[in-house]
């Protein structure tokens, strides 16, 4: 008797939770810009644990490396001294190149691109649990002045944009995420294209798929691709990557290509967030 009753309530529980899930799906299908109080409560439990696990992991790896390498430090030190000399010399040459680069950039009219905007560094403290999406969580949020649709960079290149902000964390959708599209153009010829994330290319090498290149476009292997002026989330002129392969599709009248991002997505640990929203007033992706 008791057994029967408990199985009945279990079924009721299953049905009501199923309905709840569907309701949640319907309400969060379009946008998830605002974070509900329940999500905030979760984040206050999970994010500190994540931070702890991360710093403990870093500490552990540090210790292990230290023990492993303690004998090699002397030879390493000597080698490094030599390298420093070499690098000092290289640095002078690079400094000269940089001046030249600045000049060329201003010629390309890109100099007010993204160097001047206020940026903040953030650490990645969690990645999407599965293999299907490339979404990650960084350790700064509303409290540090971040907002939805802010642009995320790493080093020289584009990583993605913030899709959701909590009090102490923010979710970043990277450009290699399968559902992500970025309007882009070739830096050399200004031919427009769309950079898509593609899971089948991401798994082994973290490459992107470039689509909708015009048939007449003069894109060649080795061209650098930057964000275009058409994108309403990203400012113009952020470097995305380099073209490594081009295919002609005769029947579609467009070319497709494979792009190697400048950012190493496989070993991404720290990112820079531009603390300014570029999105236009009108809605639409």
């Amino acid at each position, binding site marked *: 008797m008791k057994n029967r009753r408990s199985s009945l309530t279990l079924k009721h529980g299953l049905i009501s939770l199923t309905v709840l899930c569907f309701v949640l799906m319907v309400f969060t299908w379009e946008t998830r810009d605002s974070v509900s109080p329940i999500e905030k409560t979760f984040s206050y439990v*999970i994010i500190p644990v994540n931070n702890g696990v991360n710093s403990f992991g870093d500490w552990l790896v540090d210790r292990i490396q230290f023990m492993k390498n303690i004998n090699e430090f002397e030879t390493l030190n000597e080698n490094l001294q030599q390298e420093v000399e070499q690098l000092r010399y290289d640095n002078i040459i690079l400094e000269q190149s940089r001046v030249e680069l600045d000049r060329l950039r201003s010629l390309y009219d890109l100099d007010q691109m993204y160097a001047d905007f206020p940026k903040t560094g953030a650490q990645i403290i*969690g990645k999407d*649990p599965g293999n299907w999406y490339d979404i990650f969580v960084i350790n700064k949020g509303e409290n540090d002045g971040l907002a939805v649709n802010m642009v995320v960079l790493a080093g020289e290149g584009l990583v993605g944009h913030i899709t959701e902000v909590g009090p102490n964390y923010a979710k970043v959708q990277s450009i290699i995420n399968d559902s992500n599209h970025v309007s882009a153009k070739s830096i050399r010829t200004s031919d427009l294209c769309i950079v898509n994330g593609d899971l089948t290319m991401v798994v082994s090498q973290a490459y992107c798929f470039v689509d909708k290149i015009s048939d007449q476009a003069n894109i060649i292997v080795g061209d650098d691709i930057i964000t275009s002026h058409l994108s309403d989330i990203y400012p113009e002129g952020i470097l995305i990557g380099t073209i490594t392969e081009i295919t002609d599709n005769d029947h579609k009248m467009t070319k497709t290509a494979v792009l190697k991002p400048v950012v190493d997505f496989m070993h991404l640990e720290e990112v820079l967030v531009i603390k300014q929203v570029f999105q236009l007033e009108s809605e639409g992706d």
Partner: protein
Amino acid sequence: MLRTIAITLIIILNVSLQSTFVQAISIYNIVFNLFIITIVSFALLRGQKEGLIIGFALGILHDVFFGEFIGLYALLYMYIGFINGMFSKSFFKESLFFPIIAIALSDLGANLIIYITFLFRGRTQFFLYFITTILPEVSYTTLVSIGIYRFYLFINNKLEYYDRWKGSRNKL
């Protein structure tokens, strides 16, 4: 009481470890699915109710922190827990064969359903996705689950021992 605390801790640790530690030991950018292992293990060891609750809790946390919208993973994991819970009385807890097969099949099923959400966006090359994502994940998960199931079995035995000890003390 102790069981509730233990399960809550396991859920929190699962979410944290899956997004940090497990990512660090990925093979060719493929990670195994700790959530599925946890849900199926507890569903098989403890029955439908616990499977359903743990599945829903892990799913909703997955959705909150990483999902594109809320509800998909909660629904998926909840049903995985519920369905696996049906078999909790029909096998020996100490034998590894059945749990491992159940974990592999559950992971395969979950991935196939997630692939359907990809179909909505016109990603129709099923075979390619199967080779590059689904198959490696299922293999990796199955391999890892052997150790983790044993660990959960150990914890469950301790908890059951504690429950029995408490029950006998209350009777006196």
